[in-house]
């Protein structure tokens, strides 16, 4: 799988993402600079990693969505390319309107760095094929603005068309969007990640890339990456 990681000024989880990708592909991903005009040729996957692009000034992801490289990323998306956006990457994808909705300040108004449990809502996508539908996996989250919101109509559309990728739940899979223990940042419908209409773009707030090694506490996040490799190389 040929992957590229896009680096904006203030991106800070590009190394984590590179380690995760390297662990499943055996090769280092290309690092793409925000001012580049083009993506490397022949890419299978573009990743927008976590961090604080442009310091999160103005709004999280707002300035990055207008960076020079985003033109190439839009073209890549239009041609059906696969894109994963994690944390700030998810925020950038919503600001760039490649994914619907927006990420508000956490309901607690505090940064949240803790493990959470995510329920896999469908497993017929390149991002989720190595899980079963309804599987629950643990992953670290670390963000101040992860409270997913969209207009009621958009939420209904996402739900009706199966575009919710992951939800915050209890370890046993129970969801309660009103319980801050289970839905820590207050997201609507406890949504932790969504897909694009063609299921080739996935944005999510938590960090599966930080849980791909037993030494760091587990490999719970690894199926996302092994699944991508299988889907995109196969």
């Amino acid at each position: 799988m040929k992957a590229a990681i896009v680096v904006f000024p203030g991106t800070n989880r590009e190394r984590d993402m590179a380690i995760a990708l390297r662990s499943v592909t055996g090769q280092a991903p290309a690092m793409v600079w925000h001012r580049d005009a083009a993506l490397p040729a022949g890419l299978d996957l573009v990743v927008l990693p976590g961090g604080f692009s442009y310091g999160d000034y103005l709004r999280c992801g707002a300035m990055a969505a207008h960076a020079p490289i985003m033109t190439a990323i839009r073209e890549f998306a239009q041609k059906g390319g696969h894109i994963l956006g994690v944390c700030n990457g998810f925020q950038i994808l919503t600001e760039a309107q490649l994914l619907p909705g927006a990420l508000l300040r956490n309901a607690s108004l505090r940064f949240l760095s803790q493990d959470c449990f995510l329920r896999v809502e469908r497993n017929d996508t390149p991002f989720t094929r190595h899980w079963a539908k309804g599987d629950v996996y643990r992953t670290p989250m670390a963000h101040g603005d992860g409270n997913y919101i969209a207009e009621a109509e958009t939420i209904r559309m996402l739900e009706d068309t199966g575009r919710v990728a992951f939800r915050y739940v209890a370890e046993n899979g129970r969801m309660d969007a009103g319980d801050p223990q289970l839905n820590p940042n207050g997201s609507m419908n406890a949504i932790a990640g969504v897909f694009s209409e063609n299921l080739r773009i996935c944005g999510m707030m938590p960090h599966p890339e930080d849980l791909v090694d037993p030494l760091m506490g587990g490999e719970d996040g690894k199926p996302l990456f092994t699944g991508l490799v299988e889907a995109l190389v196969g």
Partner: protein
Amino acid sequence: MSAKAQRPVDEALAREFGLTAEEYGKVLAIMGRTPSFTELGIFSVMWSEHCSYKSSRAYLKTLPTTAPWVIHGPGENAGVVDIGQGLAAIFKMESHNHPSFIEPYQGAATGVGGILRDVFTMGARPVANLNALRFGDPDNAQTRRIVDGVVRGVGGYGNCVGVPTVGGEINFHPAYDGNPLVNAMTVGVARQDRIFLSAAAGIGNPVIYVGSKTGRDGIHGATMSSSEFDEDALAKRPTVQVGDPFVEKLLIEACLELMATDAIVAIQDMGAAGLTSSAVEMAGKGGVGIDLDLDNVPQRERGMSAYEMMLSESQERMLIVLRPDRTEQARAIFDKWELDFAVIGHLTDTGNIVIRHKGAVEADIPLAPLADQAPVYHRPTAPAQPPLPMEPVIDPVGTEQALMRLIGCPDLASRAWVYNQYDSTVGGQTVRRPGAADAAIVKVEDTELGLALTTDCTPRYCRANAKLGGAQAVAEAWRNITATGARPLAVTDNLNFGSPEKPEVMGQFVDAIAGMGEACRALDFPVVSGNVSLYNETRMPDGTSQSILPTPAIGGLGVLDDVRLAVGLEMPDGCDIMLLGETKGQLGQSIWLREILGSQDGEPPTLDLAAERRNGDFVRELIGQRTIIACHDVADGGVLVAVAEMVMAGQAGCVLDSPQSGMRPEAFWFGEDQSRYIVAVRDGTALAAMAERAGVPCRRLGRSGGQGLTLPNGSTISKERLVAVHSEFFPRLMDR
């Protein structure tokens, strides 16, 4: 303020700038004339307590600073130790106490930013942050505001720069009501052959300014940090700097990119006293002169005077001496990161610092006497008031209730509310997150090495007996590193005390250093970097001032050759739970005595450094052999609190035996005897035999398993109840 509006320089102005009459006399003698306004400003900040260490320097020299694995000790921006495989760990801890009382968010944030720069300026990529925080009485109206701001500030900065915050400590005590302590520590990793120092060299070489623009913020911050607060402390807000972690992140990446070339001759961050101290120290250390033209300094505001630019403490700035032919190569890197880059001067052979602004020479000071004739004080000391002897105690509440009160009290309650606001996983190398082990464990990327990191100090012991307290802080750091299986290498110290002009405070300072030195020597655990923060006083309504508890915070660093061997608190089922180290049942200065009987009496527990070393070496060896599966040192709250923490950290419960110790239950369970570890092993009998051969006291406490903590009387406290009580304090204080 234009130069014309500046007041004439005289002794009265010098006093306002924080210089004594005698110090001003020295300035006149060095200059051979009346100094200019800017020159006086430079002298006053360079000779401030904060920059000159004038009250502490004579004593700091007594600390051990060398070992075969020490590459650079004190004197550089941070300490450097060999961790193997050609790599070095670079680390330091520094205080930002005064700004954090005035403006907690920015005070704490810029504290983190400053210590990060001290580390990456030496060529290291920062891999971990820790912080040692001391706050006032939770019931004091100011405390909540300060805790909130400091925690947000630490997180706001550290999270954005993408360096994981992995550990630290927090205490509450009324002595910190008007003077919280914010001690931030950064650890970085560099190749040993790519370590950058600050001594300037090469006459004619260009002096480069990079990073943020200079504004009027933080002018005279170093002087503020060298004086007591008065009732107008909050009016000093303009002297607090404002941080921009986004620029810091760019600066880290740009500097590391430049450091991968051979363009740099010397580099230093602009910290306290900004451009003044970086220019003076770099040129001074290199034995050269330096000529700066302030017209070229990137400025955020209009009409700044030379004085203002030289004393500004605007954040996220670095000073670099480059090889002459590498200016354009360096400029391209900083252009890429969209950071200011300006040639603001060059090195000279005059031995003077010369400051030009708008065609005029604003300052011309000989560097050697500025450094060599900086004041050094041997201030008078007096013995501190010893604690009252401890009255014979009777336990009024019983073991179970005492345990529940202790695990819920401010000093022992869960810190999850705090560390869950700090990104502890960014970087993908965090092997043990906060609370999971006695020291945080961070893997060194692309190697099998692990760093074990901790901060420690028990201020109430230090107040009762500063020498013992200083030694105990070092021993506890060593112990916490040992309890993970790591080999302790070195410490950074952050010495927070009250006014050195109070003889009893100066006495505490001198004693604490003596104790630290003794422990460092006994444990081969040298001091490689550090920081002194004096004048930590709160002005009381009656005009007196109250000193903080003496708080020599120790930041310890150890290494694991194989990070996979690290152990934490979590016990598997079916282990023998054993106590290593001697239990005498000392309750003086214990948390139990304070929380249950409201007494702060008695001598702190004794510390036998030979036993410390023997017990620790034994534990470390057995962790390395995988005989010890889980380990926790016994600290605040004693044995029962430590066992409860192990139960809360994992899935397994614990069933305790009756100790048969011959001492009262509260003394056995809550005494704070030092140099002890609780370990989980498969075969307790075998461990006891090994311990006996090694001369390490060993006794069985019980067995892991079950669903909670079962006390010797058969009563079981569920894990859920332990966790609930342990977790109550912070949310109750902060989210009300």
